[in-house]
């Protein structure tokens, strides 16, 4: 038999040697030509791999500590916990109306008034620099809240242009905080600047308009006296118009009939 380990053994070479064993165990071709069983070499681990592993472990530790909500079983959002690792969820304060408002706008308003707030010419009025949104001229905070709650129909004029479409009522879909947030958002986006609308004001208007089922028309709204939110006084009702002396627009006309 061959002592040279470099020559793979072939079947016919082995046959005469092993004919006796072949009666004992069926040694067939595939075993004859097999290589030795696998064994280990002993090359060292590269330094790069070791360094990389340590770097990864370091990163892992940092990530875990920073994103684990203090390892509490009641904290589900990793970003609600301060770095100091305090266990419970730390309240980050009331939600920012610009962010909430933008979300509401994207979900419900964007489809008509567009992401630019410019609307569609002849179809959907713009919100940018709009007297309706910014409570200018005869428009007040109360009017814009009514429009969102109950909808708008019939011919209207926005920035000198005529529109005749229908806006759906959102009072049944949006809560007071959402109405307040989206109005605050549109009043302060795209270069607009106007005071925020509060959820309490929306609640008040909603209560006053509880019986209103139809969408408003421009004529009806014009008949209602303008009201703005006064930070120093409680929100005014429609019956007693309270002009904010600091407001840039004209004071309202004489008291009209109780709120339409």
């Amino acid at each position, binding site marked *: 038999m061959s002592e040279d380990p470099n020559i793979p053994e072939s079947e016919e070479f082995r046959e005469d040697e092993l004919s006796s064993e072949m009666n004992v165990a069926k040694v067939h071709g595939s075993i004859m030509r097999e290589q030795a069983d696998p064994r280990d070499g002993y090359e060292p681990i590269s330094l790069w791999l070791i360094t990389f592993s340590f770097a990864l472990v370091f990163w892992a530790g940092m990530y875990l500590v920073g994103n684990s909500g203090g390892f509490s079983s009641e904290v*589900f*959002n990793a970003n609600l916990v301060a770095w100091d690792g305090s266990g419970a*969820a730390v309240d980050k304060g009331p939600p*920012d109306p610009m962010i909430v408002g933008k979300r509401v706008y*994207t*979900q419900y308003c964007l489809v008509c008034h567009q992401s630019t707030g410019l609307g569609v010419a002849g179809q959907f009025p713009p919100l940018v620099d709009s007297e309706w949104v910014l409570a200018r001229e005869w428009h007040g905070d109360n009017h814009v809240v009514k429009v969102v709650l109950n909808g708008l129909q019939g011919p209207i004029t926005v920035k000198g242009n005529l529109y005749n479409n229908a806006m759906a009522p959102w009072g049944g879909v949006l809560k007071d905080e959402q109405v307040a947030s989206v109005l605050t958002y549109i009043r302060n986006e795209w270069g607009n600047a106007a005071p925020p609308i509060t959820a309490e004001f929306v609640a008040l208007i909603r209560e006053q308009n509880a019986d209103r089922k139809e969408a408003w028309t421009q004529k009806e709204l014009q008949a209602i006296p303008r009201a703005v939110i006064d930070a120093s006084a409680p929100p005014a009702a429609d019956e007693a118009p309270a002009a904010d002396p600091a407001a840039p627009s004209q004071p309202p006309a004489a008291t009209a009939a109780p709120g339409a």
Partner: protein
Amino acid sequence: MNRLPLLFLGIFLTFASAWAGLVAYPYLKLGQLLPITNEETGELVPPPLSGIADAGQDVYAANGCLYCHSQQVRPAYLSTDIAKGLGPRRTVARDYIRSRPAFLGTMRTGPDLTNVGLRYSAEWQHRHLYEPGEVSKGSIMPAFRYLYIMQKIEGAPNADALKDLTGPHAPKPGYEVVPTEDAKALVAYLLSLKRNYPLPESPEEALE
């Protein structure tokens, strides 16, 4: 490595560590959660399922709805689920204590169903299950007509019969399509999927 006790110990310990964290811990901390009382309404949240809605879970499981529909609302800092209107807040462990099992799902071949009970009526659900392609044009959802029976109208039409069916499987005149108990249970379950009640561990606006 020829020291076998070390090998066995290592095999045991490495596995045990993850078992402790991903099995024992949830079992202890999440698997024993109880419903709590909603401060505003005084009701238990999550609300218990009615008998028929609970039976509907078995129909949901048996027919593999989970393989296309998920039931989880992810937080705003990790997804756009809330922006898309899947729910007012992310879902948390307590939301699933009535589920057998928790049908969290891992595919959205079809829409997420966490709050589907808020969106569609029972009639819509029945029509949709019977022939999804007629109600939702372009849908690839399979039809579940086998949960319904097409029968001849005897006397007055059955009170449960599906109305306004269209398409190739709509009943011919004189015939009606009636839901089986399984169909009714499934729809009752779908209507119960409302996770818009407040939970303290899931504040409604999780903002970035």
